[in-house]
């Protein structure tokens, strides 16, 4: 089963690489990511499968907005004309030599990648201990929010930086757009009605994922993206850009501070281990839940800003 799906993934990846048109490349990439996430599911990691599926949808949205101008033929033709301006390289140097080199490196790599059993030391240690040390039932969440919360802080920081970077790199300083460029699709009544039904489901589902994060697959990141997805639906319905981006941005930074403070107080300072034994499980579950919720809100706000930034301002 795994073999066949892996082959599917390989086919999709090959087509990402050899496809000429940008839209098709994006479509293939989306497909490739989704098949990859099925592979993750079969490898026993539903958490990551969820993360990859949500992430790939968001990456597709970013790519679609960002590369929208290069979808049609005329731009591609212009691009080809540009290419002629530079002196022509010969085919051997451009395609065949790199192909030979890449295949050579691949063969070398596989030659040295000797199959060997995994050393299970850390895995067994964590699987044996995580219910006592961190609590919860999901080992992945336990590592993500417990043993390696130090990494998670930097990951959250990276999202803050990404938002700052997107605002800074863009040429536009505007943060509030009342009447942006509307999408050309005159959404039909039926579509509108049905999206209206779907939108609340996404937000409920996101909250469910966050709340259940430490008990089963899912967690802050996946739930946060699902909540952000609600705002994408909102964009479909109303077609307006009236969110107070600046306030959301401040809120996001503020929540980041709370996350860091929370992690610093409970994990770094070791407060959670000081809790009396009777209340240990309760304290741990409260910690995991609150942390998941905070990360979920932070991720949701970050992605809302990114999405609105792209769709409302960068399209002009």
């Amino acid at each position, binding site marked *: 089963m795994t073999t066949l799906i892996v*082959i599917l*993934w*390989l086919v999709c*990846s090959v087509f*990402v*690489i050899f496809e000429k048109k940008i839209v098709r*490349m994006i479509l293939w*990439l989306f497909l*490739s990511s989704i098949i*990859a996430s099925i*592979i*993750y599911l079969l*490898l*026993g*990691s*539903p958490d*990551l499968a969820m*993360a990859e599926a949500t992430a790939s949808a968001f*990456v597709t949205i*970013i*790519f679609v907005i*960002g*590369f929208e101008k290069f979808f049609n033929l005329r731009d591609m033709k212009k*691009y080809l004309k*540009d*290419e002629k*301006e*530079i002196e022509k390289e010969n085919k051997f140097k*451009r395609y065949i030599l*790199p*192909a030979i080199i*890449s295949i050579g*490196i*691949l063969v070398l790599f*596989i030659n040295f990648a000797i199959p060997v059993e*995994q050393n*299970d030391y*850390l895995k*067994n240690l964590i*699987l044996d201990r*995580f219910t006592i040390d961190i609590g919860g*039932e*999901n*080992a*992945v969440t336990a*590592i*993500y929010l417990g043993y*390696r919360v130090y990494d*998670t802080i930097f*990951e959250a920081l*990276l*999202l803050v930086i*990404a938002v700052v*970077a*997107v605002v800074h*790199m863009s040429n536009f300083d505007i943060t509030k757009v009342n009447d942006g460029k509307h999408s050309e699709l005159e959404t039909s009544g039926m579509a509108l009605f049905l999206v209206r039904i779907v939108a609340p489901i996404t937000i409920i589902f996101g909250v469910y994922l966050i709340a259940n994060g430490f008990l*089963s*697959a899912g967690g802050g*990141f996946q739930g946060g993206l699902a909540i952000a997805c609600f705002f994408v639906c909102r964009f479909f319905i109303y077609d307006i850009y009236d969110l107070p981006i600046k306030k959301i941005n401040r809120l996001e930074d503020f929540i980041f501070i709370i996350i860091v403070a929370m992690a610093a107080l409970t994990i770094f300072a070791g407060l959670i281990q000081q809790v009396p034994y009777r209340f240990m499980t309760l304290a741990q579950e409260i910690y995991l839940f609150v942390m998941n919720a905070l990360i979920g809100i932070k*991720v949701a706000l970050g992605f809302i800003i990114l999405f609105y930034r792209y769709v409302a301002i960068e399209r002009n």
Partner: protein
Amino acid sequence: MSNVELVSIIVFFLAFYALVTNRNIIRTIIFSSLMEVSVITFWLSIGFRERLNPPILYTMADYEHIYTADPVTQALMLTAVVIGIAVTAIKTIMFITLYRKYKTTDWDLARIRKTEG
């Protein structure tokens, strides 16, 4: 070497080949995303066995954890996925701004226009 590992390495070097041969900035961005996916797949294939159970308490059937997936790699790759999205967003916005300035999607042409001023 499991199939998953083999194919993820093949995809890694396919993306490498594509990065080396193409001249288009958009493609470079898309291929580097593909590279990230392949590396994540490789990491998950580290403890490969047929029919692994998720590392969630009530699905873990055995106490020696032989048929339980490794939670460490999963948690690490969750971080890597988020980093991947953040980097992708930044790359895309940089490309958009670059296009506005130099009116090209070509690496070499952008360089020429940069030196021209």
